[in-house]
């Protein structure tokens, strides 16, 4: 016990004092409570009575560590604030990718979002060259997009058009999706290649908790 107290006093206490001065101050106050008012007992006597000091101090520090862990855990959960998921998008393409009529240049993303609880926002940026693109959500066409999409709210369309278990109006059990899977499809059109022989459609889908996001 003396060894433990010495170790605590010489090693851990300075470390904790440097790392978390508030916590150290609080626990030192606890020492005063444990040993009585300062000056009522000679300092040499306090140090020589580890039974009186080590227990309360250790308990104090363990409690403080526990609270810190909880705080850290809560902090980790709120590090993206209200964001539950970010799905990144990056689709480079070249003229060679456009040579087959049976393979339309189409980029598909499946995301998880419950439109009754989530707010879904799309950020889609054309890169390297100018082009338009068709946007389809759960097989529902949102038309040809002439400009970059910055903070495009997908939530209303997700609420009205869920992904269906169908092949062109004929229900197919094998086409079933789990609940809240959403399909986002992007099809570049009319690239002009003025800036070179490559282009890209980049961005991300932000899935946030609805009550905080709106």
């Amino acid at each position: 016990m003396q060894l433990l107290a010495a170790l605590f006093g010489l090693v851990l206490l300075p470390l904790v004092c440097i790392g978390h001065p508030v916590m150290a101050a609080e626990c030192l106050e606890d020492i005063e409570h444990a040993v009585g008012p300062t000056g009522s007992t000679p300092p040499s006597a306090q140090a020589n009575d580890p039974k009186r000091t080590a227990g309360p101090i250790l308990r104090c520090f363990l409690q403080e560590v526990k609270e810190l862990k909880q705080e850290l855990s809560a902090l980790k959960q709120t590090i993206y604030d209200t964001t539950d998921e970010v799905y990144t998008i990056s689709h480079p393409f070249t003229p060679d990718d456009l040579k087959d009529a049976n393979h339309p240049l189409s980029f598909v993303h499946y995301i998880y979002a419950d439109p009754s609880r989530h707010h879904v926002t799309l950020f889609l940026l054309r890169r390297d060259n100018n082009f338009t693109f068709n946007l389809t959500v759960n097989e529902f066409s949102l038309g040809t997009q002439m400009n970059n999409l910055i903070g495009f709210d997908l939530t209303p369309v997700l609420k009205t058009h869920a992904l269906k278990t169908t092949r062109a109006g004929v229900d197919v059990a094998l086409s079933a999706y789990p609940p809240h899977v959403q399909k986002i499809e992007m099809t570049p059109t009319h690239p002009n290649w003025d800036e070179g022989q490559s282009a890209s459609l980049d961005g991300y889908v932000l899935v946030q908790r609805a009550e905080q996001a709106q």
Partner: protein
Amino acid sequence: MIRLPYIALILGAICANGTLATAAENSIVWKSIGPNLLESADRQTWSVKNLPSGANPRSFEFFALRFHLGYYRIRLLSVADFAQRKSAQIAKEQAVDEDSPALFQLGVRAVFRTNAFADPMVAVAPAGFVTSSQQPTNFGLLKIDGQVETKLVPRGALTAIVCLNNAPTPDYQYQVPTFFRTADPNQTKLVDQCRDEVQTGPRIIEDPSVTTKGEFEANSNRYRAQIYNRTIEGKTVPETVFLGISEKEAFSTPYLRAALVVDDPGRFAEKESSNNYERDLARNAYVVVTTKPATLWDLQDMLSSPEFYANERYAPHWAVNLPGDDYATMIHVSSMSDSQQIRKDPVEVGIVDRRQASVLVVTKRP
């Protein structure tokens, strides 16, 4: 003094039980848009008449085209083949680099605008189902001019193989389309013999020429047969209509729908009075596309009703479902003269740029 309220009472009773109201509401108006019976019914509403108990009352909106198969014909076109053969015209029409065919909009509008045939274009509608939007090949059997483009899928909901020409002899003056059953081994030979065919389905009204009443009676839970009364030269002629859609479909998810329909118009040849006596006998074909969701039951209700045909001689013959949902689309001429087609302002229904796998093309016969 007594007569007027009495008449009012009778009229009130008739209207109350829905007879007059339903007839007026469901009466389809066919408008002539070209010679030799080319008609369209644009933006009409059908209130479903026969619903099983527990199903909610409902209606849907649709467009339809009706044409005489003696003077118009249906062709089948693979969209992939069309894109390859007509790439220069499509590229020019759509202002896209010809070396980038993946950027072509290959829906019914592209086929309508870039006619792949020598005959005047009348209409384009979907034929076969698409494998997926990223792989827009035909799903199921597609055979064109005897060449198998994609293979038959023996199981699943695509229970019909529409054969565009099942005439008894090759020199027939008109087209006799029919359909075979995908899973019927007795019809395998017929499927093999047909030169232009596409797999689709489900079957909405069965073809009575390949159906016996007995098989419906043997499985009355699955099929129903109903009597359809038509009038030919003042006489009521009862016809049996074999319904392919079961009652449970009335409770299924409604989608936008498309259908290919062939009627029995009750035509008789008048040899002495016409040079075209043989082709005058031909049936009428219809392409129907809904613009409001409907179940297959709803569609069957309409296609087996006299109000849809709006002609006392006509009776239902057969009907099959075509690709629906986003693929339910059609484009047709708004009017057509005897000599040449007027292609300005065609009637466009649904997403006309939606990539299709194969299409039905209606052209005018020479």
